[in-house]
């Protein structure tokens, strides 16, 4: 199980996706967690989160993007240009941020230079920057347009019933993921952050039914474990910009800590992330995906995000928070500054780390900073213990 999830989290070319394709299944890549993946499952299409994992150079990304842009979309473009995403039947680009929405043009223009790199289904999903009011109607319209587009292109019909089934099954996955969060909330945590995070990232790239089964097995195995080597470790929460770097979590854990939760654009953000199974499915999807103002792209909703993160930090009994962002991610870079200030104010030690996306090219620097932070946390508790 660990291998299957770890493999899924750290590779693009997956056995499970290949098996899906061999059965004649279609696969569509998407860029942002604001996309309701249920729409694709309802059309019997496998949605996978686009990532840049495995990009070992940036010559294609850099040829289309300027130098002052985030390395995450650049790495995705690099893989697309290197034909690593050739198995995709479609792509949906969202306006997660300025750099990410420009992946639309960069990919299209790249395909004029490198043939056969643009899937025939190439859709732009326009997410509002507000989570309520007329933005809800806008988002619902976008979902309908996406559905129309999928139906026309792939010749599939997306009925309410199919959508409701997809919602129900996806809710099961969400519940299991939240169960995983509960296992991490134990002190000591019942599962390492590296294993848990790999499982979370895998949820965005593996066929749902296969994944759901493996996840239940994983939870069962963890529950049955008798010994626990994670006791006495400092408990870390990882926050910030999009991050699928299992190796970053591993690096933190190698410093003697355990990562017990994340808020990094992958995985559940709270227990209420479930989609209403009884309501009109489009409305229900909209309410869940758009509400919660989960990302700093929802300008002016910082306090709501701070509240959610703080509640999770308390529930997970966190000793310290590592706030990372990919360089040029201004939104998370800035929000991390506010979070550091506000978390420190309530006594939660925090550190900000800026990094590049991709293989940990700066491992030495990151390792040194993480080690120092964990040491600081340890010495702080030693100091408290030593106090009369």
């Amino acid at each position, binding site marked *: 199980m660990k291998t299957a999830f770890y493999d899924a989290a750290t590779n693009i070319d997956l056995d499970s996706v290949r098996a899906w394709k061999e059965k004649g299944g279609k696969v569509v890549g998407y860029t942002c967690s604001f996309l309701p993946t249920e729409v694709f499952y309802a059309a019997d299409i496998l949605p996978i989160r686009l990532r840049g994992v495995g990009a070992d150079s940036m010559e294609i990304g850099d040829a289309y993007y300027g*130098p002052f842009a985030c390395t995450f979309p650049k790495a995705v473009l690099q893989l697309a240009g290197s034909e690593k995403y050739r198995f995709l039947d479609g792509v949906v680009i969202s306006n997660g941020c*300025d750099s990410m929405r420009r992946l639309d043009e960069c990919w299209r223009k790249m395909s004029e230079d490198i043939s056969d790199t643009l899937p025939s289904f190439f859709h732009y999903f*326009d997410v509002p920057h507000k989570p309520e009011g007329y933005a809800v109607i806008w988002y619902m319209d976008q979902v309908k347009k996406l559905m129309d587009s999928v139906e026309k292109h792939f010749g599939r019909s997306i009925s309410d019933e199919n959508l409701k089934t997809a919602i129900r099954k996806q809710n099961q996955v969400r519940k299991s993921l939240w169960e995983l969060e509960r296992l991490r909330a134990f002190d000591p945590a019942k599962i390492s952050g590296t294993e848990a995070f790999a499982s979370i990232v895998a949820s965005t790239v593996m066929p749902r039914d296969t994944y759901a089964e493996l996840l239940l097995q994983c939870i069962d195995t963890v529950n049955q474990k008798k010994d626990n080597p994670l006791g006495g470790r400092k408990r870390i929460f990882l926050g910030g910009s999009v991050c699928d770097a299992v190796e970053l979590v591993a690096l933190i854990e190698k410093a003697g800590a355990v990562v017990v939760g994340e808020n990094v654009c992958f995985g559940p953000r709270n227990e209420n992330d479930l989609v209403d199974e009884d309501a009109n499915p489009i409305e229900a999807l909209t309410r869940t995906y758009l509400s919660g103002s989960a990302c700093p792209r929802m300008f*002016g909703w910082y306090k709501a995000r701070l509240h959610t993160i703080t509640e999770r930090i308390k529930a997970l009994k966190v000793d310290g928070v590592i706030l990372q962002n990919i360089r040029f991610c201004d939104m998370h870079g*800035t929000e991390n*500054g506010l979070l550091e*200030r506000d978390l420190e104010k309530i006594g939660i030690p925090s550190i900000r780390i800026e990094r590049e996306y991709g293989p940990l090219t700066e491992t030495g620097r990151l390792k040194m900073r993480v080690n120092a932070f964990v040491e600081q946390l340890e010495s702080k508790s030693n100091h408290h213990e030593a106090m009369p």
Partner: protein
Amino acid sequence: MRPELLEYNLDWLFAATFNIAKKTENATEKELARLLQFAPYDSGLLTPLLGLGKPAITFIDLFGEYYSNIVNAKRDGKKVVMTTFCFDPSIFYAVNNLVPVTLEIGTALTSMLWKRGSYDFMDFCTEVGFSETGCSSQRGAMGAYLAGAGAKIDLVALNMGGVCDTNANAYSFAAQYLNVPYYGLDYPSQLTTEEVRRYHYKDYRELIQFIETHTGCKFDIDRLRELLEEKKIQDALLDEIEEMQRLVPNPVPGLYHILIYASRYIYSGRKKYTKMLREMVEIIRKNAAEGRSGLNSGVEKCRAFLIYIDNYSLNVGMWDWFDQNGIAHMGNILSRTFSEKAPYTTGIPGTTYEINTRDFESMIDSLADINARMPMTRTIRGPYDAPNMWLEDTLSLAGIYNADCCIYNGTPGCRNTWSNVKLITRDLEKYGYPTHLVYADSFDGRVESWDTTVMRLDEFFRIRGLL
């Protein structure tokens, strides 16, 4: 931050500079030279500005008044709203107790007037948590207001979400840091559809509510009508300037562009702005009638279209260099209005705005349309190669102005344009426009010194055979 910077209020410094500069209107050259001895860095902006004659004096007066209003806001019982450049401020002037402060204007001014620009303020933002890669255009003046070296901000309202997330993010940070209310208009990636227009209208009405809630004032309908009627006159004058700019040689002095857009961003709908535009039109008409170039030398060798913004990192060095080399500045993305009668937009449905002052609702709709069609909220909101977006705008503008080349100049903080500028550059070259990409920061000379930028510009113009 150097502690002495906190000794002076930024708005007061600007107000004092412009109010004193205004008094030089009737000064002799000798008197002026003597005065500038005491303000050596200011001379880099004021000397070329004063050389422009009447419109520049009105510009200085307008800026003096604008900053004096900010300085005196609290004394006058007014609230201060922090806003952005691509937001039409006339709405703020339609309530009787609100004064806007536009960050990008302040940042550009410090770069043009001060030896160290707004470096300390930029760095202060970083010290208090703002991302160092965030756009310098906000980061400069914002630092002063965050540090308490400027007016006390009461609310934040702007319009760049969805167009420039970096911009909206900066204001969102400022609101959070200062713990004041925030409202941001949101823009979908499309522009011309009816559903987008409806979205804009609803969003703008929320803004109206926000302003009323936080100022405790109702909008004065007559005042709003007066502002919009004045704006119609301003648009007509701007259209005439744009039209005359098509002449060869271009009769419009390059520095007029910065006067035009900087004043529009703070004084849209105000009579002083109209006065300045009228004075400009008079001079340009005269130049045109005499077949005279707006360049000081009077000899136009080349016409350059700036596809994004100008460079303010060292005084008005960019305009000076253009002037010395006989390069006519054909404006940039900020110079344009997209009123329905603008020479480059007529006939393209849905891309322009019309000002309708029939009743309050029509005026609010008009303002929503205007704000959605400010230079950036219109041109760089969607894919650069979509209809009526950056590429088409650039090609049509470069075409009607007979531009010989295009130049991109911006800030490394501009995630939006730096994510597709290589694409548009390549396209412009394909369409026959030699295009130069400037890697400097328009507001921060530490990224690339102006001397280096000049060296590269010089190389571009010579190697491409433009001079």
